[in-house]
């Protein structure tokens, strides 16, 4: 028997002629991360907005923390924290003022609201910047302030709508760290993303959505099995020795390696021992490498496998 922190069934939402959601089911067990993976326009944000009581579905139902999003919207709002893909903080207010305002709106007393705000600013490395207006913040700082703002009320369920879109890799790692910490505290998270890598790193379960429908559902491992191989990439310290490395790659993968550039070789692999085998053989051959990595397929490749279309089709 499973208790879901939130659950949506058959959500349908139409905007004029476009169908944003075409009967979507999403659910996350308490204390887990549900990754919702999909390209732009797939319906991720619409689904989040319905679960956050910002939009009413045309059909279907959604329950968050045991409360119906339509009948008990006020109670749902007490349960959730929301972080949009655009940072929803007030630029003319300081970091501190932003968080205190949210605290006051959540019925904390003045001193409590200020204490909670200081605590969160410290936690997100914004203590020093707390007295400056948010418009002076960098993109990464705004994102962190936005995340902090959604945590003021210690919500049980947090919606993160593409929290790392537009952030550089180091800032992305920061946000990942925060998400992991939250899950450690027992919070349930709905994470939307365009990156399989991100969903793979953070989510317990992944739902892939496309054109308002869930097209695949499962744990990251299950999903990777469906979408197939990963790619091994190697860059040798001495570019001359790349041919030897390529030969090892080809031998293990059972197909010729390609060279995306000087001193580099790459090959798709299947099976869960291929990578370690390659590492061992390269080491045994005494080839020094500056980079040796295993890559997940890109979202576009996932989509191609699942739908037979590339994500670029969506833009048309």
């Amino acid at each position: 028997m499973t208790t879901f922190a939130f659950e949506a069934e058959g959500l349908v939402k139409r905007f004029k002629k476009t169908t944003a959601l075409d009967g979507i089911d999403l659910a996350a067990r308490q204390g887990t991360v549900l990754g919702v993976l999909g390209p732009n326009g797939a319906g991720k944000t619409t689904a989040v907005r319905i679960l956050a009581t910002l939009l009413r579905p045309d059909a279907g139902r959604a329950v968050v923390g045991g409360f119906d999003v339509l009948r008990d919207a006020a109670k749902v709002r007490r349960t959730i924290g929301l972080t949009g893909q655009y940072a929803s903080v007030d630029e003319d207010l300081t970091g501190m003022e932003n968080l205190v305002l949210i605290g006051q709106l959540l019925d904390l007393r003045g001193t409590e609201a200020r204490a909670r705000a200081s605590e969160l600013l410290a936690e997100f490395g914004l203590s020093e910047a707390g007295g400056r207006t948010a418009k002076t913040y960098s993109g990464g700082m705004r994102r962190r302030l936005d995340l902090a703002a959604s945590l003021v009320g210690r919500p049980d369920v947090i919606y993160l709508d593409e929290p790392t879109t537009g952030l550089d890799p180091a800032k992305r790692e920061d946000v990942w760290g925060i998400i992991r910490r939250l899950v450690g505290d027992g919070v349930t998270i709905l994470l939307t993303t365009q990156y399989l890598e991100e969903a793979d790193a953070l989510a317990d379960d992944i739902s892939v959505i496309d054109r308002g429908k869930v097209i695949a559902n499962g744990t990251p491992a299950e999903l990777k099995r469906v979408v197939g191989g990963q790619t091994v990439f190697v860059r040798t310290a001495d570019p001359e020795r790349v041919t030897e490395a390529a030969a090892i790659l080809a031998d293990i993968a059972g197909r010729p390696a390609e060279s995306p550039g000087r001193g580099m070789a790459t090959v798709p692999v299947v099976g869960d021992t291929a990578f370690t085998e390659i590492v061992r053989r390269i080491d045994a051959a005494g080839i020094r490498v500056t980079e040796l990595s295993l890559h997940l397929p890109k979202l576009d490749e996932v989509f191609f496998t699942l739908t037979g279309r590339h994500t670029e089709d969506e833009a048309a």
Partner: protein
Amino acid sequence: MTITVDQAASVAVSPATRPFTRTRHILALARRSLIKTMRTPEQLIDVTLQPIIFVLVYVYLLGGAVAGNTHDYLQFLLPAIMVQTVLFGGMATGVNLNTDIKKGVFDRFRSLPIARSAPLIGSVLGDLIRYVVAMVSLFIAGYILGFRIGTNLPATVAACLLTMGFTFCVSWIIVLFGVLMREPGGVQGTAFLVLFPLTFGTTMITPASTLPGWLQTWVNVNPVNHMMEAARGLMVGGPVAEHLPWVGFWSIGLLAVFAPLAVRAYRRRT
């Protein structure tokens, strides 16, 4: 397997539904608007300079023709210009609100367990400070030009408060536009279309006796005209009582119709 708790049996009162709580939310949000105004003083320049320019233009262009001299005309004009100034200030509320809603901040407010009306009322209330700044600067400019209160200070303060209360009610029309429309420019344009006949279809710059009959009919029902006449009566002397019921009736009427419409539109806005 799904568990859905039947909440129908739960009777726990959500704190957010208590009026006291709602008032605190509104005040917190009004404070936010206030801080924003203070941090962007360029917004206030608009509000302070525009009425002074209006006064200068009317007094020196029309003063001689309408009242025989500029001094008498200034006594006639200034209370009415005050009402116009504050009303135009109310227009800015709608424009600001529109800009605000388009950013993500209002999404956050809507995801919080607060009354849907709180962010709107908070914005309108927070903007009252703009009216005060505009009125004070107008009075200073008026005093330098020779305007003198013809009644007494309490009556003048009453005129100011009445104007602010009236504008609070009227500004819900603009707030409705601010919530409904997609672009701040559209809000501004539409607000002007509404405010122009309201502020200029009045005895603001010239007595009603010189107007054509059809325009006099409009002037007689126009709530802004009654507000201007009441302000004039309170500040320089003249009939007040006959205008007050009109002001009260229109204020309550506009508030009762447009505030719920604006909140409803805000709730439905995606």
